[in-house]
């Protein structure tokens, strides 16, 4: 005689996806900066961008903003960032 334990968690149906390959060097690449609109994200990202720019010399730096720090970026924004940039910098700044 046995008893049963029922798993209350439900199944997760997710597809594993590999991370993008890392670039070997940043010089000459197009940098996208994604601000998530948290209180101090702007400050943190602009400071980090200035230091990176001085060290690596990007071909271009473009600044983007999410509508809400708590929600995913709009798909059109993600597409736009992916098309116009080689690397992306993002951060939260509470």
């Amino acid at each position, binding site marked *: 005689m046995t008893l049963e*334990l*029922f*798993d*209350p968690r*439900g199944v997760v149906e997710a597809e594993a996806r590999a991370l993008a390959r890392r670039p070997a060097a940043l010089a000459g690449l197009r940098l996208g900066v994604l601000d998530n609109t948290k209180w101090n994200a702007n400050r943190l990202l602009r400071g980090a961008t200035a230091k990176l720019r001085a060290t690596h010399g990007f071909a271009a730096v473009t600044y983007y903003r999410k509508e809400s720090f708590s929600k995913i970026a709009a798909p059109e924004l993600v597409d736009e960032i992916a098309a116009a940039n080689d690397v992306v910098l993002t951060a939260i700044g509470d």
Partner: protein
Amino acid sequence: MSATGAVRADAVADGTDLVEAYFERGWTDGLPVVPPTRARIDIMVEALGGDPAFLECKVPPRWGSLTREVLAINLVMAGCRPDYAPVVRAALLALTQTAFNLNGVQATTHMAAPLVIVNGPIAQRIGMNAGHNCFGSGNRANATIGRAIRLVLLNVGGGTPGDLDKATLGHPGKYSYCIAENESASPFAPYHVDKGFAAEDSTVFAIAAEPPHSVTNHVANDARGVLDSIVSAMSTIAHNNAVSSGHCAVVLGIEHARTIAGSGWKRADIRHYLWDRARNRFGDLAFEHRYGRIHNRNLPAWYGRDLESRVPVVPSPDNIHLFVAGGEAGRFSAFIPGWGHMSNPVLRGIDGAAPVSGPVCVDGACQL
């Protein structure tokens, strides 16, 4: 034949302490759960309409699949009666509407918990407490409906404290946070009727919320006097609405509601008065800029940013969700701050009830 069977069930030896076994696996809110049996799960699946593999929704941030069988297991674990099942289902369908942003609510460092308020005849039919101590303990329906929601958020949604739930403090409503509006004692139309549902329909309202803040007023004998105390509770820079805008709830106690109604005021008058009077000075929100210049992008663009600007607590009277609840005695009400603009409250019909008029509603759920 059993209606269930899709969910994995581990066989354990007869005599095993099942309550401890659920604790050991982390499948609990920290309190002992009612160990589900096949028979109890089957009864609960039937209460949900049968078809145990039917997918009701996916629950973030883990995005586990909430089938009727999985929901039934959690309902049994919470201690629900089968006739509570439609309320819990409607609440979870409301919480998983995109507008609610449950992913953010679950994961935030803020203490917000989903507050569910039930309207319509089902509340009385299943014995919910809308009266004395309604936010407190002592009523099976309130306690276990709220608990079942939380167990699903934990088990299926993965909102484990410190893991995917990053709440700095949390609050006691994360065990259970569910009441009914006291429609029979209220001098006003029920909330769901105000939003376009028929009085004989039943609904759940869900908002990501801080705990209730008590508002005492044993002095005023008119609407303005009572409401000025609620205005005072709303007008602080500490709650999340002050810095993140969004929606909030106000729960009028019965005595306060009757005093206000005695002045001839209706729901809309109350909401507009609270919105008009509840204000913060922008200079206070910005700490007079002594820590650097503050603009606050999370407040609406149209708010004044001069130090002396008096900015609203929420952007519109419609963002104040007004309910009447509590016992017959006591001159108390409650202000319940929300999480902020990141989450939109949702009102949803139970068992397919749809509004007859009112806001734009899709699939039985209204974005408020």
